[in-house]
């Protein structure tokens, strides 16, 4: 089952998209992506000198005509692309519930999974801190993925680095990893988490989901006791002109730091706001990362 936002129009648009890794990987099955394995696939890769025992049918006679030397054509094998989707289900993704940050993260993950499954890639869902699903194959598996994600009830506190490390430990073949979170956590935890993924030689993309309240968390000019949705910490504050300006600066700094880090680490990065249309983001926003085309 798929969420209501996955109407026919959206699905048609998704079917036109193609998921691609920015690098080639060793896949385990035949699929639509170029593999590092060299063998007898369709696409020409390279030449090498003829050796006794090679199949004479692969001799490139054109090269022989030009060079009087015998060369064999080499081809790249086309394999499936393992896709790992990691979702942050901590309480920050559900606060405030009305802005539906989690629902947006879920829908983005589902859309990417749909694209991947349609092109015969394997998809695995990691719900951070809870479980990592088995591999799903084939277009029909999208309903299973939909049921899985619709059944997740987000909330609570997640040890982000540990959860990502646990999920990464289950990866057997390098492929694509997409992390979807709001990344409103200390920078060292973000680094530690992505470090685990990088150690697995994955092609990583980070998608940050933000809502309006992340930009404007509090009412202006009212003394409040702000309570952290995950650990329950409290601070007293009042948002006035000065503190408001300071908050904006902090947010900008945090975002810039994220962007710089991802760039340095060759991690694709995209940001989606909850008030942005899903199809528009998928078609325009995600394609800028090179993940979809």
């Amino acid at each position, binding site marked *: 089952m798929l969420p209501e936002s996955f109407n026919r129009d959206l699905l048609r648009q998704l079917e036109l998209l193609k998921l691609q890794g920015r690098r080639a990987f060793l896949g385990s099955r035949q699929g639509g992506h170029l593999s590092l394995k060299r063998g007898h696939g369709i696409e020409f890769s390279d030449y090498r000198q003829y050796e006794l025992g090679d199949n004479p049918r692969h001799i490139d006679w054109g090269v022989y005509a030009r060079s009087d030397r015998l060369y064999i054509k080499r081809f790249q094998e086309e394999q499936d692309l393992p896709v790992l989707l990691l979702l942050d289900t901590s309480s920050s993704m559900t606060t405030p519930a009305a802005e539906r940050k989690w629902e947006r993260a879920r829908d983005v993950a589902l859309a990417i999974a749909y694209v991947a499954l349609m092109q015969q890639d394997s998809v695995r869902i990691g719900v951070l801190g809870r479980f990592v699903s088995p591999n799903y194959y084939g277009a029909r598996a999208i309903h299973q993925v939909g049921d899985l994600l619709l059944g997740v009830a987000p909330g609570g506190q997640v040890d982000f680095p540990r959860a990502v490390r646990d999920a990464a430990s289950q990866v057997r073949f390098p492929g694509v990893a997409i992390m979807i979170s709001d990344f*409103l956590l200390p920078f060292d935890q973000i680094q530690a988490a992505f470090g685990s993924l990088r150690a697995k030689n994955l092609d990583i993309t980070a998608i940050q989901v933000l809502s309006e309240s992340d930009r404007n968390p509090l009412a202006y000019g*009212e*003394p409040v*006791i702000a*309570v952290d949705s995950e650990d329950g910490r409290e*601070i007293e*504050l009042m948002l006035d002109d000065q*503190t408001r300006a300071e908050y904006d600066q902090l947010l900008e700094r945090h975002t810039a730091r994220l962007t710089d880090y991802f760039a340095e680490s060759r991690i694709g990065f995209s940001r989606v706001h909850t008030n942005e249309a899903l199809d528009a983001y998928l078609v325009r926003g995600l394609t800028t990362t090179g993940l979809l085309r």
Partner: protein
Amino acid sequence: MISALLASFGMLYPVALTGLPIVAGALVYAYLRRGRGRRVTVASLLLLAQLRQRAPARRRFIPPIRFIFELLLLSLLLFGVAGLYRRAAGDTVAIVVDTSLSMAARISTDALGATPLQRTRAAVEELVASGATHDQYELFVTSPTLRSLNGTPVAAREIRTALAGVEAVAADDNLGAVLDHFAAADKFDRVIIFTDQQATVDPKSGGDPRISLRTLVSPAERREMHNVAIVGIERTRSLAADESEVAVTVTGFGVTRENVRVVLGAIPPPEGAGEKNFSLEEARAARTDRRTLGERTVILKDGVPEIVRFSGVRQGYETVSARVERTRPEFRDAINVDNAAYLSSDERATTVEVVSDLDIQALGLARVASAKFVHRSVNEYQSKYENAVAPPGERSATVIFHRYVPRALPPTNALFVMPEVGSPLIAVASESRNVAVTRSLASHPLVTYLNLSVVTFPILRVLQLPSWGEALIMTTAGIAAYAGSVQERRYAVFGFEIFPYEGKKSPLLSILLLNSLKWLADLNTNSGFVTVPTTLRNVTEVHRIDSSGDDSSDKGEKIASVADGSATIDTPGIYVTHDGTGLRRTLAANFFNEHEFDVSRDTFVRIPEPGRRTEHTPFSEAERNLAGRIAIIALVALLIDWSIIFLRSVRRRRMV
């Protein structure tokens, strides 16, 4: 004025007020938190926590009106929990007068020859005169049963009026049960008991501090008091001749060697062949007509009973009276009531109802000739008396319940034998086997003259003593038997089996049963007498034609105490009764109680520890229910206030 107002309040649990500073502190803390602004949950404090200047400087806490309102309510709640109550102005004092027979004993060394009861009147007068203006008093008498003469605490002057009518009666003092009753009751600030006995207390607990005993006779005075009493009278009939023998047992208390004369007199038989019962006119005439049947002189030593036998009492002289008279004019006999004893020949069998799943034969009661037993099975009893819709009609005056306990005490005298386990009415603590008797209450008519120390009960249901009961037989496992009175009805309970009745084969149990029937059913097992105080049932008129009391004025006249076909008699003597059908009955009534007769020895009664208060707790009286009302009002107001705060916060959260 304020101090007087404050003094008029009391508190049950003042320690609860130590919570006041805690509650106040908690409320201040809650308000300080509330003043910090509303709580808003945000996705993450990651960035907000980095803000350099977050909150304005905290203002000084100025309590709003709501804070004061809530603090007041919480304080009221605490006062309610502390059990605030309004004291009655002045003390409530119970004045308990021992009205047993020994209180009518003349104190020989007293210049006026006063009795302890006369001294009590003076002592009570002095007590109320020295009491506080607002003190209230309730007057009780102990005998024949504990009862209040006022019904409710009254002012001192009303006590004086009630005191004038207090007289000693031929009855036991029941002081043990009386003290236990007041130790358990919380109605009185002080309980003062006027008696001729001495008080003892447990050295560890010290006894209930509210209860005090005023002893009206000193040990030195007691040593000079002497009493001669008839302690028993019995008729034995010879089967061969138409004569009988009357044996009169006489004992001297506090005497050395005292010569006394025992005289047996008879009231001539009524006219009419074979008639044994007097008509009213004959009863009046018999007031002065006496025949002396015999006279004996006997020397009494202290505490040693002497049996004086009068043989050859001719048939016809069925109603006899025995008197013991001093021979020395200077001998001062302390009590007169015990100088006479009576016998009559009322041979009408008393009907005793027996409720048991065993029949009369199996219970051995067919051998008891002096009573007529009517058997009912348990189911029959329940249908007729417990589950019946219509009133059951006339009942026997005495019922024996064997291995069954009804839902409520019956409106008759009753004996319970081996009560069922689990009954709330007659509580059984446990069941034990092969239990030996440790002691028995020798002065009680049920067990008097019985040597129970040799008895072992094969099966004993150990009994829990009710407030109205007096333990009769104690064993290694607990109480084996007790007896007592409730609203002038007598009840006895045996936790051991006394059936089947086997006569001489098991003499102790047989005597125990006969004593019980005699005590409960006025059973004339020996053509004898009833024991006062007792209630005569199914009578329309009662006349006294002889008595040993000093009040001889009403002899032969009606005793104006017949109510609903019952009359209570409390003076030894000869009574003539009529029932509605014209049936006449001549009854002898006696009181034999060596505990009351022996006025020469100090007797002691223990003041119990404060019992678990079961009556008249402060919250049982409307005027002291202040604490409950305060607590409820405060709690309701607080709940409404906090509900409003909660609903407002929910609404705010929804808006966020």
